[in-house]
């Protein structure tokens, strides 16, 4: 992967996600404090930070798996409110990949992929299956289409999960620690899929501690701690010249 190519933003400069002065509490606990973030079309952002810093919560707010209590989140021109129509619209446009894959164990791989397109997008079954096979090829797992999720390895399941999201033709992909539940030898196959996705110009927000991935793919790295975005920069600046003491501490712990 050529960092130079990745560094170029093939972007028209309209933001696809705008988060303004967003706060969230779990009961009394203030998880997200005044978060401001603008994501451009085609931009790739890696979010890192110690556990409990609110990074997962932040991206889960973007497709309303968590509800924010103050501030605004606008995704592709639609503001997230309590309006169910808006929420469902945004969810169809925002793909999400989970730490624990969350494939549907009672459905075959192929059915996992066609479910969303058929029921939400009302795609004809045949077309949905063709598209599913296309993306399964892309994540190099087409021969497993008739199997059930539990028959696959972790890395394979995560690749299926990515393909499942892609079948909805999302504008943005959110990744919530996609490799942290995987055995070490399976991390690479998932990262490779994500890198090829990046090369296709997908807008990506990735919560991850895979610093190699961040260096080669991200336009921007965010460091979160205590519910705030403490620091953000290009990967080169971020890793070579971290500004904040907490960032330095975190990097020293993680890069050992």
């Amino acid at each position: 992967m050529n960092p130079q190519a990745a560094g170029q933003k093939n972007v028209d400069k309209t933001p696809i996600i705008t988060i303004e002065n967003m706060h969230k509490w779990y009961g009394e606990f203030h998880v997200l404090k005044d978060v401001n973030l603008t994501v451009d079309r085609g931009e790739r952002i890696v979010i890192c930070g110690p556990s409990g810093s609110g990074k997962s919560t932040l991206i889960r707010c973007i497709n309303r798996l968590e509800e924010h209590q103050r501030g605004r989140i606008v995704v592709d021109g639609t503001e997230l409110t309590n309006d169910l129509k808006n929420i469902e619209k945004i969810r169809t446009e925002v793909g999400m990949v989970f730490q624990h894959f969350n494939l549907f164990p009672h459905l075959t791989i192929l059915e996992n992929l066609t479910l969303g397109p058929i029921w939400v997008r009302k795609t004809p079954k045949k077309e949905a299956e063709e598209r599913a096979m296309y993306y399964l090829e892309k994540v190099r797992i087409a021969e497993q289409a008739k199997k059930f999720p539990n028959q696959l390895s972790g890395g394979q399941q995560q690749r299926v999960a990515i393909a499942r999201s892609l079948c909805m033709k999302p504008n943005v992909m959110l990744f919530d620690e996609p490799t942290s539940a995987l055995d070490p030898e399976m991390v690479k196959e998932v990262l490779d899929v994500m890198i090829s996705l990046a090369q296709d110009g997908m807008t990506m927000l990735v919560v991850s501690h895979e610093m190699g991935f961040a260096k080669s793919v991200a336009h921007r790295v965010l460091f979160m701690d205590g519910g705030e975005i403490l620091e953000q920069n290009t990967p080169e600046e971020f890793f070579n010249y971290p500004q904040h003491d907490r960032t330095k501490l975190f990097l020293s712990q993680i890069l050992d």
Partner: protein
Amino acid sequence: MATMEKTPHRKAANSIRPPATSIGVIGWMRANLFNGWLNSILTLVVGYLLLLTIPSFVKWAFINSNWFTTSEQCKAGSGACWSVITANIRFILFGFYPHQLQWRPLLAVLILILLLFFSQNRKYWKKSLAYVWLLGLFSMGLLLKGGLGLEVVDSDSWGGLPLTLLLSVFGLTAAYPFGVILALGRQSDMPVIKSFSVVYIELIRGVPLISMLFMSSVVFPLFLPEGVTFNKILRAQIAIILFTAAYIAEVVRGGLQGMNRGQYEAAESLGLNYFQAMRLIILPQALKIVIPPSMGILISAFKDTSLVVIIALYDLLKTTQTTLTDPKWMGFSAEAYLFVALIYFVCCYAMSNYSRRLEKELDTSL
């Protein structure tokens, strides 16, 4: 295999066969029945008890038994009097249904068994099956009730096996979806729906079925305007449905709570709405988890239909009892009840067998 296979001493460490487990009849007995003095004594005691009971039972039930005799001949003999069943089989099975018309309930029961037989195979779970059921239900109703050229039979004279099956099959098929809805209601975020479900479930579970049947037959008509009557069987049927649904609801709720949060989130993040997520993702998995306890409830509900005797419906158990009040056949209750027990057992065993098979078929983990 009668002899124990010797495992080769040294073989390549990466491909050792598992140790042989089959060690012959004597080996098995030594390992399971006589492994120690306590087990040996228990084995001998149990063997002695079996020797004491089994031969005399066989003698009573088969060797000295009477099958197609009069009651006098039965009383003279020493064995079981199965004649009590063969002589009264039509009353036991069909109750007070007019004698010359009893082919109709018989046919209805056969249709029902046929329908159930086809429905248990997942191969036939298609839309057409629903139409077949509608057709089947219609013809069963027609056969029992009459009309369209068939002589009309008042539902007061329905009884026996058709009544038991009617109450059970309709009770269970209606109670299950209702119970699922209640379980979803109890999980709902909407306070009205949630509290309705909770109150309903707790109220019904706090009351014995017998009192619900009493209420349906004694109390409920008091609230109806004068002259309006409501079929007694239907009232009992509704009481059974309402009662069973509350228990189903709690079992299904257990299954819903056993679901991984991630499944809800994955469904939501694909943009599925609540009903789609429930129907396509959550319920198929949750209901699969609760197949064994659901079947337990369905089986006990099936047996509980016999409680309708207390509101004077002549179900299978009641017709049997009635037969035994006939002075001619008094005193042969063991035979009669064994026969009824056998019918109940066959049905219940079929249900539990089916649930085990369904569980296996739906298992996608391997």
